[in-house]
């Protein structure tokens, strides 16, 4: 170990450079140890296995192995009707099912040329932003858990629980909503639901500050994350990292602004980006803090959406749902939406029958995870935990 300490790894060195530097020391240290991190490991957020080649605690090479949760979503969908698939998209990223629903439903609507009313769109925006909030709470909370802080996790779970209660009132599901349909929604809003959303927003005021002072700006937490596992903007784009991971690297990129759908262009919100406040741009802390800041922006959108809905006259949310989908337009389409984890794309091929011919889900976590083996050389095992948490993967989506 003593020789290893002498390598002065410069801040911001590319992983390639680090691995080169490490290669030179290989002979000195001789044998490497292979450690299997996962599939049953608390920090891998599910059933991910990472094969680590380590020298002491320093990682020389990391190979992620996925597929432990593979259930062939794409094959299953080929024997489901267009509307039934919605129930399956819930289970991709089980932390943000409304956003999955939205991605699929919008892709189908664009393909079949179905127009939905403004009210339906606003409700969709409201529900998916609430779910984004819930998903980010999980991401932030479990990240604290990875770093060793238990309490913020349970505080955030507590706030998330209120959102799930709202969902329960809305559509009966808490985690897996199955709320959207091609052309509409399953239920209209219940009585007083918008008022409850307003109450929730006022309840949440100041709660994120508490999380910030308890966790985000805690010296130990900052030390653990600053300058660790830097993923530059260029690398993010190359490896297909999107969403908060890309924004954490300093790129102002959000599909809600850049390729607006569902009328997102009419909402007033900002895109938070990582600015290297405590370390280098694109380190773990930046990716983390972007999520915290996004929560505030989501709350702004929710507030605007509720205000609009209160003014809007009620109409039938089921009106545009096609009565029969046995014969649809053939063709293929790729449509992407901004998911809490990144860019969720659905590539749909239809041959005009009642089942999708081919449905490919471009899962954000899948691409995000592929960057791991490029970033990890030179990290310590504890940093590896920080890296996995910071790119915020959900294995249900990686393995599909």
């Amino acid at each position, binding site marked *: 170990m003593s020789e290893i300490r002498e390598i002065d790894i410069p801040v911001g060195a590319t992983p390639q450079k680090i691995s080169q530097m490490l290669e030179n020391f290989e002979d000195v240290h001789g044998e490497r140890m292979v450690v299997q991190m996962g599939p049953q490991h608390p920090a891998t957020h599910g059933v991910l296995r990472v094969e680590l080649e380590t020298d002491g605690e320093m990682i020389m090479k990391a190979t992620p192995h*996925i*597929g432990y949760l*593979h259930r*062939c979503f*794409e*094959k299953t969908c080929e024997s489901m009707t267009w509307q039934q698939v919605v129930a399956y998209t819930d289970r991709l990223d089980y932390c943000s099912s409304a956003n999955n629903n939205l991605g699929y439903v919008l892709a189908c609507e*664009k*393909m079949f040329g179905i127009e939905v009313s403004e009210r339906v769109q606003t409700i969709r925006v409201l529900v998916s932003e609430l779910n984004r909030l819930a998903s980010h709470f999980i991401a932030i909370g479990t990240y604290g858990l990875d770093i060793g802080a238990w309490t913020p996790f349970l505080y955030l779970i507590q706030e998330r629980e209120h959102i799930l209660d709202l969902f329960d009132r809305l559509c009966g599901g808490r985690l897996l909503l199955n709320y959207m349909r091609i052309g509409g929604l399953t239920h209209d809003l219940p009585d007083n639901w918008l008022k409850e959303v307003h109450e929730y927003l006022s309840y949440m005021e100041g709660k994120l500050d508490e999380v910030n002072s308890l966790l985000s700006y805690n010296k130990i937490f900052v030390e653990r994350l600053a300058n660790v596992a830097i993923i530059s903007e260029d690398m993010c*784009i*190359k*490896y*297909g990292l999107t969403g908060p991971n890309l924004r954490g690297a300093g*790129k102002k*990129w959000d599909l809600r602004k*850049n390729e607006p759908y569902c009328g997102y262009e009419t909402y007033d919100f900002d895109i938070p980006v990582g600015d290297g406040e405590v370390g280098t741009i694109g380190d773990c802390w930046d990716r983390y803090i972007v999520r915290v800041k996004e929560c505030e922006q989501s709350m702004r959108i929710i507030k605007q959406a509720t205000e609009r809905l209160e003014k809007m006259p009620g109409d039938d949310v089921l009106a545009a749902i096609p009565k029969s989908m046995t014969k649809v337009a053939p*063709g*293929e*389409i*790729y449509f*992407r939406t901004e998911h809490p984890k990144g*860019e969720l*794309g659905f*590539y749909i*091929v239809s041959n005009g029958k009642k089942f999708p*011919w*081919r449905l*490919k889900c*471009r899962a954000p976590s*899948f*691409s995000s*995870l*592929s*960057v791991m083996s*490029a970033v990890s050389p030179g990290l310590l095992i504890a940093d590896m935990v920080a890296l996995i948490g910071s790119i915020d993967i959900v294995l249900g989506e990686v*393995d*599909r």
Partner: protein
Amino acid sequence: MTIPEIFNILQEKFPEAELVLEENNPDPIIRAKCEAIADISLLLRDDPDFSFDSLMCLSGVETVEEFQTVYHLYSMLHNHKVTLRAGGTKEEELIVPTVSHIWPTADWHERESFDLFGIKYTDHPDPRRILLPDDWVGYPLRKDYEPQKTWHKIPLTAIDYKEEDNGDES
């Protein structure tokens, strides 16, 4: 830049690539010969007019006649998109040159497409299965796929617990 414009430029640069523009689709698709895909991709990424710096999605598709690989490209710089398609008949294996050296994200997507469709990617740095176990037989997303009965003595067909006790697994 619109897709027909891109198509015209590409056709000039790659006359032997058998480029076809499929227009009967919501978004037009440029179809190319398999062998030319890597060269076209390299040009699309590096040419400053195109600069398709991100590969949004890479998917294998099986149509009635053929296997295909479909590339959805996007340029963050110019905000334009293009879809490429490489296809080959079902009689022989579809072999496509890898683009993982051009967009590293293609690495895993190509592995997935190999895993589920059996499309081979030449020069791929890590041509293993990704989602399924290494010793799996068959390519599940093919339409004529027949699942194995057992895998390492694990029964792969659903067991109806009402009808029979889950006693023997042989």
